[in-house]
């Protein structure tokens, strides 16, 4: 089973310092990157390619708060939400304002920050129900921001 925390030798928690993540990522690449095995035999090269790829995949998941949350919820056996009626109010309000030609970007950015803090708190409190609701809202919000 692919475990990004294990691959980067990190404790399996949501809360993750970006500098620590980066240090672990660099350390893992130093040990696995194919350039470090350029003088090795074919088998060593193939292994390096595979391991270094896994390190990159782990890094991509862990550095993204949404992917990290998704992974942790999956590991806890929690299904992701596919809709949230309470959030619909917000969405309708935003749509109305968009239709009026308002620039929502600054407001959405504030909301995003608020939700990211909410996600952190949910995991801190081991409240998976709240975590999956906030994750759903964040996913929606990021699509809107794009």
């Amino acid at each position, binding site marked *: 089973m692919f475990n990004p925390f294990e691959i980067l030798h990190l404790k399996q928690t949501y809360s993750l310092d970006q500098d620590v993540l*980066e240090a672990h990522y660099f350390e893992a690449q130093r040990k696995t990157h194919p350039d470090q095995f350029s003088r090795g035999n074919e088998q060593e090269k193939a292994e390096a390619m595979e391991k270094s790829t896994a390190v990159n995949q782990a890094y991509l998941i862990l550095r993204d708060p949404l992917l990290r949350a998704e992974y942790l919820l999956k590991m806890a056996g929690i299904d992701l939400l596919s809709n949230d009626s309470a959030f619909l109010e917000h969405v309708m309000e935003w749509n109305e304002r968009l239709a009026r030609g308002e620039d929502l970007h600054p407001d959405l950015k504030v909301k995003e920050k608020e939700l990211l803090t909410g996600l952190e708190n949910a995991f801190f409190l081991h409240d998976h129900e709240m975590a999956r609701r906030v994750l759903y809202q964040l996913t929606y919000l990021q699509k809107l921001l794009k």
Partner: protein
Amino acid sequence: MLLQLVEPGQTPDPHSTPKGVVVGIDLGTTHSVVAIMQGEKPQIIPFKKGRSLLPSTLSLTKEGLKVGDISKTALSSTKRLMGREKGLSLSLGSHKLSAVQVASHILEHVKLHVEDALACPLEAAVITVPAYFDEAARIATKQAAALAGIKTLRLINEPTAAALAYGLETGAEGIYAIYDFGGGTFDISLLKLKGNVFQVLGTGGDLNLGGDDIDHALLAHHQLSDLTEARFLKEQLSQKSDYEGITREDLEAVAAPFVKRTLQITQDVIREAKISLQEIQGVVLVGGMTRMPLVKQEVTNLFGQQPLCAIDPDQTVALGAALVAHGLTHGSEALLLDLTPLSLGLETMGGLVEKIIPRNTPLPALASQEFTTHEDGQGGMIIHVVQGEREFVSDCLSLAQFELKGLPPLNAGAVRVRIDFSVDVEGLLTVSAFEKTTGLSQHIEVRPSQGLDEQTISEIILESQKYGKKDIQKRLDAEEIQKNDRNSFVKS
């Protein structure tokens, strides 16, 4: 050269052959540069008359084909055609050459020159390519090296090489922007330098934006006899404010739109990497175009700081390549973490592109996607691999096309095929396909990097026409127009 005679059935002892040198080669659009490690530092191996730059040209003389002449009839800037030509040939007298062949002549010249200068065989080389080079252009570069008898240790991106040379020279740490404006291409890369790790955070560019374009525009706007004169004028006006009645303001009026375009790309890359301008510690200038005062001024304005010019902008890339060549053969503390410059994807229904590996994914990379059949009893599936950022296949570069045959005759949507994309540290792709619905697993592996010779390309095209894909012809027509466009950069 001595030939080693071997009795049939015997293989020579690999350890008995003398080990050659490894070098870094910057195979540039207008100039090529070669460097080697001397003790702790990389050094340029000068060409004749102590010049560090070899014009990337090929001309026909009484003695035959000659590299490095800047006569009016010489082929130049052919790097812009790398991986773009599909059967196109350049004429030089009675010779018909492809851009790959021109590059191989230049590389062979470099090889012979190095061997002559160092009295030692050239064993292998690290060759630099623009970060924004696509798969086809990267493969073409490797083919040119192979034709020249040079083993490619590794392709490396030019800005990454420049950052390495700069970082190791100065011990710089933090986030740096490498602004590389050369004769034919523009590249911008953002790198994080930290304790000998060189992590590329974002990269972007334009393969058809360089000093050559300004030469062409100058030629069109002023009464000049040819491109050589235009280039000379451009270089003069970068040092003086006036030359033979044409002022620096005249040059800048012509150059401004091109420079503006580089700044737009730069801003896009910074935004995409989610980095603020304040976080950028320094800006390193690479490429001949950065000598133009207008370019320096605009870059200074954009970043709000003076760019760094600690190393000659023409030499930085080759010096970095020499460092990598040494590192790969002798071990190194430096670690390069690079990215995919362009998204890789597959054609889906309606000529749309499904991105499998988005641009700016760290390398090596692997990603998978499952596809199903859309017709009952569909026996095969055409896998069309493309590269680019656009939504439609017709706007992207086609890398390879193959058919997965013998799928189980089930209802639409019942057959599941998994496609794997794997990209190595040089940015080269391998595509694998698996069909496991019935337990009959089918596995096919395609490496565009090994199969993109001209014959394969024409076969792929024939195949696709057989399947009645009219869009392919449309695309070929469009490509033909582009090809002719690009061809105008080459003197004949």
